[in-house]
């Protein structure tokens, strides 16, 4: 519906434009007689765009909005990751996720608390606003922090259905985006956007279709397709709430549709804007275990 609204605005503009022909003479005089129709057309366009409150966003603009979605100055979340195999058997991973943002970058630190064989493992991702990122992994058994190469993004995140790629921000200029339309998911209006990497090395997926919730710019669902165009995985947000003024996905599920297993991610507790120490997001902090 809203998509139709945007198209209507464009059509009005196209109708108005032919009446804005300006002769060279008039141009030379600097005061075209047809100034009024032009002005009116522009006014109508901008007014309608304004009324629709940004509904004319392009796919790229939506991708940027998602990329820059407010997540607070910082946050600390207690999270459960539940791995469910094809027979329904469950394995649980417990972790703490810390986020922080400053004028330079967004920082995310994930520390595993259980099971014991991975407890202490920590992952630090720094995503710069101007593109580019750095990732570090601390393994307690090695007693060393390793800088992780880009190819690591294709690695499975602690036996789950998430790849490291799924946990990091996608810098919009690295991908093509196409607005497919609008749909409702769980009675919530969404934009439907298709994205695919400009360079193959930036993603293990061929493309993905994302349902972006308009009120909040976060995903309700993402369908991931492999390079052959076959549906591979589905990430579904099952419950979300506004907490301390920030939209927060509290329960989501990544399902491997080919292998029939899935991973559920549940935020048990989250606190925003408590003034986390920036030193928490350093290699010094990673190695404190």
């Amino acid at each position, binding site marked *: 519906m809203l998509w139709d609204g945007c198209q209507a605005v464009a059509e009005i503009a196209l109708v108005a434009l032919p009446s804005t022909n300006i002769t060279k003479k008039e141009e030379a005089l600097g005061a075209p007689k047809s100034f009024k129709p032009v002005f009116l057309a522009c006014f109508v366009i901008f007014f309608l765009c304004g009324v629709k409150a940004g509904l004319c966003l392009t796919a790229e603009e939506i991708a940027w909005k998602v990329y820059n979605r407010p997540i607070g100055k910082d946050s600390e979340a207690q999270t459960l990751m539940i791995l469910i195999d094809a027979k329904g058997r469950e394995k649980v991973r417990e972790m703490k996720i810390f986020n922080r943002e400053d004028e330079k970058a967004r920082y995310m630190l994930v520390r595993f608390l259980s*099971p*014991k064989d991975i407890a202490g493992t920590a992952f630090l991702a720094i995503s710069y606003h101007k593109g580019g990122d750095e990732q570090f992994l601390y393994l307690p*058994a090695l*007693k060393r922090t*390793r800088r992780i*190469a880009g190819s690591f993004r*294709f690695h499975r995140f602690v*036996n789950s259905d998430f790849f490291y790629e799924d946990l990091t921000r996608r810098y919009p200029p690295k991908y093509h985006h196409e607005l497919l339309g609008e749909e409702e998911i769980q009675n919530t209006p969404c934009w439907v956007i298709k994205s695919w990497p400009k360079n193959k*090395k930036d993603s293990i997926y061929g493309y993905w279709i994302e349902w972006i919730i308009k009120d909040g710019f976060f995903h309700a669902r993402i369908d991931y397709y492999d390079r052959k165009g076959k549906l591979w995985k589905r990430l579904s947000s099952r419950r979300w709430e506004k907490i301390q003024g920030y939209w927060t996905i509290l329960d989501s599920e990544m399902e491997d549709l080919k292998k029939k297993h899935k991973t559920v991610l549940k935020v048990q507790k989250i606190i925003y804007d408590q003034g986390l120490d920036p030193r928490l997001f350093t290699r010094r902090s990673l190695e404190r275990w």
Partner: protein
Amino acid sequence: MDLSGTFLSRGTLDLTHDRPLEDQTSDREYLKVEARFDLSERLEGKLGLRLDRLAFYGNHNGREETRLEFWESYLRFLGKNTEVTVGNQIIRWGKADEITVLDNLTWQDLRELFTWRLEERERPWPWLRVQHFFQNFTLEGVFTLWPMWPKRDDFDSDWAVFDHLRLALKRAPLPFPLEIDLDKQKLSPSLRNSEFGLRLQGVFREVDWEISFLHAHNRSFYYYVRRFPLRGLDIEHPAEPIKDLRAAFPNLRILGNTARIDRPQDNILGFAFETTWRGLGLRGEFAYHTGRVFMKKDLESVQKPYWRYVLGLDYRFENGLYLNLQFLQQHILGWSEKILFDPEYDSYIFLRLSKGFLRDFLELRLDGTYGITTRIYYLNPEIAYKFRDNWELFGGFHLIDGPKGTFFDVYDNNDQVYLGLKISF
């Protein structure tokens, strides 16, 4: 307080019973328990104990060693920009992975030589460690009164420095009886025997770098044999020393039955880096030693200036295959032909491949080392299966070979198959 622990058990079986004196099976178990605690906002600590058992069984006899030792046990003061840690701790320097030339602050348990991965060989040591974190770099100092060297068995194991030589001498049909014993220098903790080092670390355009200096005792797996009691011996077949002994008999001078082992000091200057490039992880280390220990053909040792470097890369393919490749080159300054195992220039390639299946609960691994100069190789294919969280079953082979006269030739008969279980709790 957070309590955790690990139990690990591994049994090995020799693949060929081709020598009269050899271990046919071995088993290793350890139980490690650790407690992490915060005493205040600025003070935290760790207390760890480890019960370790290693046993070898062979044709001739069995041998067992059980020890209870402190694992990581330290107190750490956390200042705003400074950390001070005192106690038994594992400190890793350097940026490279399995093959590292700068990771010299922990002692290594080499009683089964390299058949365990680096992280399983390393043991904590009592250090005073001070780290100061500046805006763009970190300065670190370490100091210990306790001199450190790797631990190896002297005799009576397939991996021992002198293999089964003592027993072989007893049994060998020699014209007169020969015995050999070791007199190892005992160094007490003191300023004179202390070890210390400095390291500066920083980041420059997404390249992590470090430069370091360490004054330490010999970290080589060769003993520093100052005096060997048999003169006129020239080892040409290290895997068959009795053969060389018989050949040397006409010119052999016997000065007693005790070999004197000293613990000389060494200085290590190092540089390391780590970065990423086009999906690759790139790492490198360079070390210069003022006096590294090497074994000579007369079974005495010599200290030589020495440098070596290692360059490594790793990459993870989309199909989940992980590749880690390292190249090491070393050069002995003032090399002479009397040096037993090591050529003047020596190069190695190390390869690690792994691939996960069943959501990575099942993993196939292959570690391989190839000596480009000496044409030696070591292969370690392994399969590991986490059949439930915290429970891992693993098994594989250690396959070693090398031409006559090389270090790996000594262990040529030690090919083995192994099976183990690791439980975390």
